[in-house]
């Protein structure tokens, strides 16, 4: 694949990652957030596919397909099932930071990500590494969602957003951390989500609606 097309497609995939990250912060309905997260999984798989095509690496193609199945298929399915089992409340009604302020905070986080990733881009400038700030922005947005949302499912999506961002940075910096570590990381993410889903169900049983603001029994 020639250079111009490679850069175009790479930038498009990164733009899609960024846009879906912003949409998770913007929208309130949990069903929409889960669909947007699935779209981000597709964008991530597309990014890895572009890298695979550029470097002609069959290993990366396999990883791209695996990512597509895991992050655009299995994980959103688990989340949707958890949402179906949840109570009638389907929206994030009172986040700790309201939506308009969250969006402005996301702007600040984007600039912070850009500042932090300067040494990373300077170490090895290339079209791939120049997109690292996008990955770090998604990590920061995920952390922000994790910290400021009250519903268990929103926190879960925030954690998975962080993970998507970290995976993006991983693929943009170097090609390989070793296949075993890749598999281990994916497995851990899947198991973490399963665990959290089961815990969400238990929270549902014990507390009713999974509004984590209710979880205030343990404190000093």
């Amino acid at each position: 694949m020639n250079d111009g097309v490679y850069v175009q497609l790479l930038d498009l995939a990164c733009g899609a990652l960024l846009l879906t990250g912003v949409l998770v912060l913007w929208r309130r309905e949990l069903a929409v957030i889960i669909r947007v997260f699935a779209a981000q999984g597709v964008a991530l798989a597309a990014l890895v596919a572009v890298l695979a095509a550029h470097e002609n690496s069959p290993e990366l193609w396999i990883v791209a397909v695996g990512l597509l199945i895991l992050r655009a298929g299995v994980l959103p399915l688990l989340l949707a099932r958890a949402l179906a089992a949840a109570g009638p409340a389907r929206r994030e009604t009172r986040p700790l930071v309201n939506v308009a302020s969250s969006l402005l905070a996301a702007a600040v986080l984007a600039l912070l990500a850009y500042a932090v990733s300067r040494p990373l881009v300077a170490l090895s400038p290339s079209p791939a590494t120049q997109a690292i700030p996008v990955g770090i922005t998604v990590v920061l947005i995920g952390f922000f969602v994790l910290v400021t949302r009250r519903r268990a499912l929103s926190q879960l999506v925030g954690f998975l957003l962080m993970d998507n961002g970290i995976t993006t940075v991983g693929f943009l910096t170097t090609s390989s951390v070793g296949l075993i570590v890749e598999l281990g990381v994916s497995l851990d993410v899947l198991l973490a989500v399963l665990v959290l889903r089961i815990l969400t169900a238990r929270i549902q049983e014990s507390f009713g609606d999974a509004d984590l603001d209710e979880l205030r029994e343990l404190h000093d």
Partner: protein
Amino acid sequence: MNELLLLLPVAVPILAACGYGLLSWRPATAWIGACAAAGLLAAAITIAVAVAHAGPRTALGGLLRTDALSAFMLIVIGAIGLAATAATPAYFAAEITAGRATPRTAARHSLLVALFLAAMAAAVLAANLGVLWVAIEATTICTAFLVGQRRTRAAVEAAWKYVVICSTGIALALLGTLLLNFAAHHAGIRPGLDWASLAAGAGRLNPGVTQIAVLLLMLGFGTKAGLAPLHAWLPDAHSQAPAPVSALMSGVLLSVAFYAILRVKVISDAALGTGFARTLLAGLALASLLVAATVLLAQRDYKRMLAYSSIEHMGLLALGAAAGGQLALAAVLLHMLGHGLAKATLFLGSGHLLQATGTSRIEAVRGLAVRAPVLAGCFGAGVLALIGLPPFSVFASEFGIARAGFATGLGWATTAALVLVLIIAAALIGHTSHMLLGDPTPALGPGAATAPTRLPGGVALTLILGLGVCAAVGISAGPLSTLLRLAANTMTGTP
């Protein structure tokens, strides 16, 4: 033969887990877990002897590696694992009698604990930062259900906070790992995450990228080790989990996460000079000690009290690591062992206390020395061990850390730390004396039976033995001293 020896600490607990998966909980199968832990300890001692004689060795094509530091950590895991699993049958006997658990719960508990031990062993045997990360994440997953085992509201809340906060911290550590891999590839170090090659080639790593990576790694693994600021999960998780699990988590898991920080420090010192890691670790240490001291003064729950004490001791470990140097690092390792044993003893004792009194509030427990003398004795001795009274080993290790702190220019930080430790000691003694001494009747109500509750023989033996080893190590490190010296060498000088 060598390869097999290295695989044993991981394989034996996995076999025990399979055993519990196939069989259920019966008087006969109840001891499988303890046998597995004993096997792990035996393998650990053998490996330690082998390493002390012949140097580091690898297995599984470079995935697993053991040097003096790993061998010592394996001994810590084995010892405390043995203590916790030896007390499990009696604990579950009481739980099943009281109707709070079923044999299925007990079998599942032991299966998860065995997997937990295997994951920790894999973490300290990992030759590669990536494998270490996967193993530590695996420990989070194994313990997630153990923390929430009791299915009460508080337990479910604790489990949720635990998994979310620890997974977030671990995700930050993963980002740090990827960035370190990036810097390593760029400096020509291949494979990028192998400890030995990283330590050898650390001088060539790009400082800017390595700084960000080390910061993320220390914060990430620091979350798992219970260092402030991301420590909020620790009191909840350790107080809501069943006693053997609390003992393991407080005693060993925190130390294993700190082991990861020590490994990262080696690379940071070689790549960035000692100043960066030292400042970072000193800051984390003081923050943790401050948090522990502030909360312990007005603490109302004895299990949370023990959990905050763990945060304090992790802060002390961080201070020792910040000081650096042979003496400090040897003291840090000794502290891991001593604190682990004492804390495990205390948590196991508190488990029986909870079963006997039905409450975990300090003010509801009085006059334990009259009602349950053996338990009270062990509990009291454990608290004395924790606050650093001789002859327990915590005294020697805290003394070593303080001396090293003053010697290497961390004078102010060490002074502040000692003041905070003093405050914490006072708080602990105050709370414990309230529980142990005094007249038991007001707590039980007039006319209630005051016959002393008896601690099961096996448990009493475990507790006394644990405290005894702690004291013995405090008097003389004995055969461990060679291992400590070699391990400290690993971290300061030649790998």
